[in-house]
């Protein structure tokens, strides 16, 4: 009886909880970038995921170079060493984009829709650029150890029927996400630049009146966002693999996560990320085996006990988004008033 319960728990952990946490962290990091730009620069950045692809591409290229030089990082992926350099490159590209594209519209106080259309243009640019430089193929750049614990070893260690597998990249994602979030909150709450950003986001005119330099705030925002983008994209690419096409598809889940959590609020982005991830995973999971462990054999379900088929997994985030927009448009944590 107890083993059945444990088996059920491990089964759930293996197929729902661990993937949900890892995916949620990835979404959270992406949504954080979107929410920051939205809060400070006041527009939805459609170029976000393709810029992420650019950042990851830089990491990949530098990682390959490092690998060819024989540099490695032991059990951890070499990409972590390449990350700082890639971040610098991405920051450069993002700042140039802001200078050449968005600054003009800021000076003209254009409507948010104009910014969004401009970001669509940037999206096209990045999309084409990434494929042009590295090509559209799948690229693997992960090395080092793969698993913190494998399903097989777990089964051996505990003697259970169900195994639990945790990949190094999943562990890394969670750890780095936590570190980044803590760092970000420290920055926003404890430093002058962070406070200036929050002030500028809350009320632009008042902030300007207090002598805050808007261009500096914008620059800091882009720098942080670029770093977030590169790290998030690299973690994602390490966990799965790098393919430009995939990053484009992540744009909507990122937006869904940011909006559901409450756009403009960093805490909201994180909550939203996990909500979306867990919903996707738990709504489409087939609970047949899980229930079989828990209940008596006569009551065991015949069907799959699946709420929604995995065909609709992609649509789950948008359904949640639409529901949130209907019931509580400002999101879980009251985001920017729309």
């Amino acid at each position, binding site marked *: 009886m107890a083993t059945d319960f444990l088996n059920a728990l491990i089964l759930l952990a293996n197929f729902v909880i661990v*993937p949900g946490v890892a995916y949620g962290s990835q979404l959270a990091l992406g949504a954080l970038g979107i929410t920051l730009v939205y809060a400070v620069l006041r527009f939805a950045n459609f170029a976000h995921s393709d810029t992420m692809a650019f950042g990851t591409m830089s990491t990949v290229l530098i990682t390959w170079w490092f690998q060819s030089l024989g540099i490695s990082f032991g059990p951890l992926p070499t990409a972590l060493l390449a990350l700082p350099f890639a971040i610098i490159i991405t920051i450069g590209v993002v700042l140039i984009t802001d200078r050449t594209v968005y600054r003009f519209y800021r000076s003209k106080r254009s409507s948010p829709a104009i910014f969004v259309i401009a970001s669509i243009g940037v999206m096209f640019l990045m999309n084409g650029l990434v494929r042009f430089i590295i090509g559209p193929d799948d690229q693997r750049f992960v090395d080092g150890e793969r698993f913190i614990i494998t399903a097989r070893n777990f089964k051996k260690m505990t003697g259970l029927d169900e195994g639990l597998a945790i990949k190094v990249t999943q562990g890394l994602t969670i750890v780095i996400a936590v570190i980044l979030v803590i760092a970000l909150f420290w920055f926003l709450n404890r430093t002058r630049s962070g406070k200036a950003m929050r002030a500028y986001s809350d009320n632009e005119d008042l902030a300007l009146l207090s002598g805050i330099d808007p261009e500096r705030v914008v620059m800091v925002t882009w720098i942080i966002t670029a770093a977030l983008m590169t790290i998030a994209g690299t973690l994602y690419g390490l966990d799965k693999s790098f393919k430009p096409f995939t990053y484009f598809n992540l744009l909507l889940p990122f937006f869904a996560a940011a909006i559901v959590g409450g756009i403009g609020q960093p805490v909201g982005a994180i909550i939203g990320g996990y909500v979306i991830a867990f919903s996707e995973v738990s709504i489409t999971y087939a609970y047949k085996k899980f229930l079989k462990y828990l209940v008596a054999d006569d009551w065991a379900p015949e069907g799959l006990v699946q709420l929604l088929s995995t*065909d609709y997994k992609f649509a789950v985030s948008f359904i949640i988004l639409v529901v949130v927009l209907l019931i509580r448009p400002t999101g879980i944590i009251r985001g920017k008033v729309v």
Partner: protein
Amino acid sequence: MKKLLLASTVLAMTAGPALAEDIKVGVLLGYTGPIESLTPDMAASAELAFKEVNASGLLLGGKKIISVRADSTCVDSAAATTAAEKLVTSDKVAAIMGADCSGVTGAVANNVAVPNGVVMVSPSATSPGLSALKDKGYFFRTSPSDARQGEVLATVLQSRGIKEVAVTYTNNDYGKGLSDSFSNSFKAVGGKISITAAHEDGKADYSAEVGALSAAGSKHLAVFGYLDQGGKGIIQASLDSGAFDKFILADGMIGESLTKAIGKDLDGAIGTLPGGESKGATSFQSMAEKAGIKKGGPFTAESYDAGALIAFAMQAAGSADRAAIQSKLMMVANAPGEKIMPGELAKGLKILKDGGDIDYVGATSVEFNKIGEVLGTYKELEVKGGEFMTIKVH
């Protein structure tokens, strides 16, 4: 060698106005889109055949075949049709090697190839639906319809005593068609399908699909996807989470890059692949490897055969006229005649020039039925020691 091939394509495209001795053949594949990583090798295989023909100098008194590549995008029918239009009416190609994906192949055939009377030989469009195409005899395919592969797979599983499987397929007409065909055949021999779940290509996270698949309780997972795409992701996720370790693979999953990526954990996987262990297949593989084409790449053999058949049809017809090519394609592919293998294209050209008949066997044992389809022999494969080994031919 690969660079040389690419260079010759480059030179071909820069040639500007083609010389009078040049015949253009369209190579219409999805160079952007969901199988963009497979198509360069497929195109290179067809161009390998062209190169062999050109090097012999025997085609129609010394004419050379120039390959004109165009992007079918695999999913955008409008773009594919426009690209095909350009090939047919502007580049005035004599025939088309393509398209790759079943959806756009149907659109191109219906809207461009058949109305303009241009032969299409597809190396990879396997949807059973294409058998019903009203093509006036202008559509051929060197890869068999998945209606047959489903049967073969069911037979293979039955012979190994596997009674229950979970099925996942890539969410397009190839995957769905194969999954349906397999389900019907497997159930007909008493098998049970515990769950059928689609997966989208181009995503990186398949843990949800794998979770649902494993919850159904089967020990075996049939993966009808692409080895560089979702199919690999599913296998990886299954192994990582401990959901499955016994896999059944269809043609789109067979290839070296999968065994390299997965490694020893793939041992014991069973699969089917069009083709045989014929001499032709093996000799093509070594030719391809020398030319820098990934060994065992999906549909490379079929692409080579498609290219060769087009060249032979021209030679048999004595001209590069489109209708003439159509009239002779069946003949050069089918018995009777002197059997021609890959690498023997010059020999075949000479026989045709002297008025004889050939039966092109090629890398995939080509033999067309009434509607221009190959019945196909399938290899039953098993992964042993990290490599695909052929067990039997069906």
